[in-house]
């Protein structure tokens, strides 16, 4: 506060909503995306996304009909792109809940205009991720329900609860369920707004059903806020748990390069890192398509860049720690696997990862890069790529040269591997575009909440109607 007194020009609290928007402006702007005609860009994007999504289904169909052999997986590399993509997508899904829940609990008001889209992104990323644990199995028609502790006539006994894959099932399904609930509960007041504004009976019925009879009474708001807070409280540990548990898939094994205790925090940091990168990628695009500059402001984006810088450094530190521990442990296999990562046949993947994950975020030290949309867009893409390489490096390099040199091998992806991965992008984008088109992509009620704070803070803006 002292600083403020010295230099009154410093803007202590840059506005979260700019352009002098009123309550009705907010409602109109966000609702119009859903109510008006879709812009041309939306159709172009759909024309790109839908065929890709169809490619996913084609690849999965071919996979199920033929066998895992259509992928490049082999012995010793039992997992290839499948689990790489699974972990990557789960990581992408991290930012949503983090922004929604943790930032909510910490009263970070700047989250309001991005949390909805980030949550939707989480859900769709989890959906994409969930494809892999199911379809990477040799017999997905069995795995679809044998991995759940349901009484059935085939197994005659419980699943093996010692297996981290079982923990995965619970962690991912809980995460998916809670994220969906959290997202939906947040949507209710906005759905009611859309219902109230609806001009056609179909819209009225659908949004009416979805808004669960929301009337906006004080009692409802009281219950709603409590429920939202509770869900935020529930989601918060899940942000940490889901990727910790995903990391157990590796950490509890005995494979050098996998068997490390650093994995849970390292994975969580990596997940947040990649999740924020994906949010930045998508938000800069959505901002451009729909002209949401006043709602998704530079402050939001800059904050996200800072998070990426921080988590990127954590990840970089973890890479260093792994090497240090490999040397310090004096374990021959461990030492070899890390040197092999950096200098073996997969060195190209390792150094791609380092370049993308450790070097690229360093640009965010500079405000120029933190506030430049093209720069952050490009860097976020690099980080997305880098985080994919991180998972690939962990999985492939640890597997391809393990204990017995006689069984060493190499993994090369097939076109089906590539098609399946590209296809999940299609599915993700399709779902996200449908979300943009049919649901309020920014939390109207929450944005209005921050708008009001700004109004009361002294900016002479007239309040709008509800």
């Amino acid at each position, binding site marked *: 506060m002292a600083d403020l007194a010295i230099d009154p020009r410093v803007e202590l609290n840059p506005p979260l909503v700019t352009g002098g928007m009123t309550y009705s402006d907010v409602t109109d702007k966000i609702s119009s995306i859903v109510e008006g005609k879709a812009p041309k860009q939306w159709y172009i994007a759909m024309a790109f996304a839908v065929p890709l999504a169809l490619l996913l289904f084609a690849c999965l169909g071919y996979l199920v009909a033929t066998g895992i052999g259509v992928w490049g997986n082999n012995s010793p590399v*039992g997992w290839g792109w499948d689990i790489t993509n699974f972990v990557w997508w789960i990581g992408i899904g991290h930012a949503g809940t983090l922004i929604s829940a943790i930032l909510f609990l910490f009263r970070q008001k700047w989250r309001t205009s991005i949390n909805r889209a980030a949550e939707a992104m989480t859900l769709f990323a989890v959906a994409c991720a969930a494809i892999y644990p199911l379809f990477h199995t040799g017999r997905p028609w069995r795995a679809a329900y*044998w991995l759940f502790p349901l009484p059935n006539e085939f197994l005659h006994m419980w699943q*093996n609860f010692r297996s981290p894959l079982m923990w995965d099932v619970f962690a991912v399904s809980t995460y998916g369920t809670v994220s969906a609930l959290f997202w939906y509960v947040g949507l209710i007041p906005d759905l009611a707004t859309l219902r109230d504004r609806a001009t056609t009976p179909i819209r009225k019925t659908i949004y009416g059903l979805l808004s669960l009879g929301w009337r906006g009474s004080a009692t409802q708001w009281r219950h709603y806020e409590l429920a939202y807070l509770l869900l935020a409280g529930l989601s918060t540990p899940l942000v940490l748990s889901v990727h910790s548990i995903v990391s157990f898939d590796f950490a509890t*094994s005995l494979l050098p390069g996998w068997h490390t205790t650093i994995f849970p925090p390292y994975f969580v940091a990596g997940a947040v890192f990649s999740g924020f990168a994906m949010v930045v990628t998508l938000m800069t695009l959505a901002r451009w398509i729909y002209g949401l500059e006043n709602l998704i402001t530079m402050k939001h984006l800059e904050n996200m860049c800072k998070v990426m810088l921080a988590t990127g450094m954590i990840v970089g530190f973890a890479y260093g720690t792994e090497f240090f521990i490999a040397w310090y442990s004096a374990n021959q296999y461990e030492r070899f696997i890390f040197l092999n990562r950096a200098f073996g046949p997969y060195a190209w993947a390792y150094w791609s990862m380092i370049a993308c994950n450790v070097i690229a975020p360093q640009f965010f030290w500079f405000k120029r890069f933190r506030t430049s949309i093209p720069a952050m867009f490009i860097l976020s893409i690099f980080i997305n790529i880098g985080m994919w390489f991180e998972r690939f490096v962990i999985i492939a390099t640890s597997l391809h040269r393990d204990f017995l040199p006689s*069984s060493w091998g190499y993994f090369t992806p097939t076109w089906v591997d590539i098609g399946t991965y590209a296809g999940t992008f299609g599915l993700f984008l399709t779902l996200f575009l449908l979300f943009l088109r049919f649901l309020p992509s920014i939390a109207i009620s929450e944005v209005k909440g921050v708008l009001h704070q700004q109004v009361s803070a002294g900016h002479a803006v007239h309040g709008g109607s509800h």
Partner: protein
Amino acid sequence: MNELIQLNLSSLTGRKYWRSLNQLADTPEFRQWVEREFPEGASELLDSGSRRTLLKLMAAGFGLAGLTACRRPVEKILPLSKGVEGYVHGRPLHYATAVETCGVATGLIVECNDGRPTKVEGNPRHPFSLGATNAFQQAMILDLYDPDRARQVQKQGVKSSWAAFEAWWLEQSAKLGDGAGLRILSPRSTSPTLESLKAEIAKKYPQSAWIEYEPVNFDRVLEGARLAFGQPLQPHYRFDKADVILALDCDFLGLDTLSAQPVRQFASRRRPEDGQELNRLYAVESNFTITGAMADHRLRARASDVAAFALALARQLNVTGAELNVVNQPADRERKFLAAVAKDLLAHRGRSLVVAGPRQPAEVHALVALINQALGNAGQTVSYTRPPYQPSDSLAAVQKLAEDLAAGRVSTLFVLGGNPVFNLPANADWAALFRKTTVVALAADENETWKAATWQLPEAHPFESWGDVRALDGTASIRQPQIQPLFGGRSALEIAALIAGRAERRGHDLVRSFWASQWGAEAEAKWKKALYDGVIEGTAFPPVDVKADAPRVFAAVQVALKPAPAGVEAVFYPSWHTFDGRFANNAWLHETPDPMTKLVWDNAALLSPATAKRLGVKDGDVLEISSGGRTARCPALVLPGHADDSVSLQLGFGRAACGRVGRGVGHRVESLRAASNFWFGPAEIRKTGATCRLVTTQEHHTLIEPITGLKRHNIVEEFTLGEYRERAGHGKHESHPPTDLFPEFDYSKGYQWGMAIDLSACIGCNACMVACTAENNIPVVGKDQVARGREMHWIRLDRYFSGEEDDPQAVMQPMACVQCEKAPCESVCPVAATAHSPEGINEMAYNRCVGTRYCLNNCPYKVRRFNFLNWNKDIPEIRKMVFNPDVTVRMRGVMEKCNYCVQRIEEKRSQAKAEGRRPIRDGEILTACQQACPADAIVFGNINDPESRVSKLKRQARDYSVLEELNTKPRTSYLARVRNPNPELV
């Protein structure tokens, strides 16, 4: 109507038959009704109906048409109303039989399930099997069910019959007269019955000729004996009695012997605990063979330089009593090696042994006989008997045949098996020569010879036909069929009987009458006993007491052995995949990697690293190898330890006329092989610029890590004898008891299965791999899938090189699931599809497996195999007959691995239970790999019983667990490889 009936009846004359009163009345309506094709209303419907009705009816019709598919197919099952005596459905029967390869017989026991042979085992009563088999014998069963076998008698490709062929022969034989135009070409056979038939044919057609030819033969061994002793004799070695062995270009543990006996004998002297002195093996060879890998000292030399080495050794030992001219001046290393070998041999007079390989010229064999005699080994470690077959110079004989064919002196040529058009020396265009006459070819498959023949006759598989064979020492066995000929084939014996004009034509009668004539009054009892035992007692030839004629050998050697010209030479070897081409359509063998190169589904020109470097050749570069105007193309493969300036070529690949498995696999090198360079000769190598993808299951990994340069311990342990003795003095090394996360399971009760694998004994011959494939219905995945790392073998042979790249040592390590007590695979499986039995076996429940492959990732030994695709898709019906009914055929998407042949354990458990609940005896259960192992390197049993063989082995000082520090507590432990180096050469 009644009136009409009356009227019509009254108008009839004679008896009239009527069907109905209507017909009787013969009304116009009735007439119309009779004439109408369809019943009332059928055609009206369409006439009066609209287009809509038509469409409705059609739709209904199509819909109802589908109902016909709802009917279940009618399948009748019939009970065995009259039980066959002593036959219990589902319990296999075992029959003794014997097979011969290149005139060397091995006794076998064949397991038959419900009338179909499914598994081959060695016959413990047979002196050359001792209960073990080699990889080829294990794979024979697959050839029996090969859908691409010759199936139909044909005349120039047109369907014919045995009757037509016999009728033709009756006519043809009448024209033959004294048989001047008759030639019979057959593979080498030891059959006494066939020998008698040959004599009959020779008597009936005195001018005819019977030529025996084998592309892989041992003629030079017998020829060498003729030089030394004045008569062709078969040497017999006692590797178990020899303390020092020198193998001169002799892969006596691998492809240069076709029986288990030498391996068993050799391996019995590689166990330092047995109280006997460890033997010491020196090998001089060009290719790096498995014998070279077992050798304590190995000298790389071109095949043509081996003679010089033998000469130098003979001179050093002064065996001829005269001054031998040494043809090549040996290099320093060679001289040192030679001096040490000579000293060692002299120090072990009467307990040493020198052997030479079949590629070496007769003079070398004669020299070797002389050396063995001088060392006092004759009668001790080497003895001689008459050979089991009539020795002949087959190269000269086929040369003569080519001349006769070219001159038109042959009117009828019988080819009784084999594939001569493919593998006769390339001196002549055999396919063209065969077309000049009438060729009757008896062939197992529609091979190159079949294609060139006039009469094409399907040959019965050895498991389908009666016969008799002699082992190397003369021991005779009856070959009994296990199944009726699947495709109506006949045996060479039966065709020979036809040629001889015998009245009896059936193999059974021929063999039986021959032996009846030998046995006289006791024939019936002896016949039964012979069939039961698989060997005929008292048929082994007695050893011949002979003395080598040193001056004659000396004279021959001085004339024949000339300095080998410098430069590259090509050497021909049988292949581990196809032998000489006869197993070219056998997928099991193609997929079993070559023991040294680990190459699958291909052959290659093997080169030393230095030669490859000099020629600028990389793995997979297609080379053109030429000699005397003949050429062959073959991709190069660099093999560490191979001799410089030498290229090793494997026979039996690149079959043009072959079944669907072997067609186009590999490269034919027979086109380079003539009588002059039948085994080796100078050659020129040129890079063609083309490349060929070679697939190996294992690269040339050593235990030295790349990047760090550190050696990996606890994988293969090796000691010299001295180190071992020191270690044994301290007792078995006990590891620190590590901490366990999960509670200890009580394994102190009941049977606890375990295994010990002796790396000192294991020669890496692949027999266990093929045996496991046959026993456990292991699928074949093909070259492309092996390239992707998806081979399915439950047991593999890891080969590690150590030392310098140019002259390394190698060690073999059989690696199957080691059945960890703390199995890393078990804790990670989400559906508990892999779990422990109370007896300590890590079992796979295929039905539970969903195929996450986590277990594979977490297995430090990488012995788990995943069904990436449906490997059992599109298997021809007949091929399915080879499946072991006791083992599930796995579907795609599930994991599988070794389970210690749990089906065999259960079989013996129920047998023991049925026999009064007695305990299972030690050694009663043999796993498939153990049973096949000629070296007896694999021992399985109950580790809870301190007296069991496996427990005793596990108490030895050299017992260790692979990757012990991981605390997986494997049930399979290994006995360290002990080498016995000569201190003078270290």
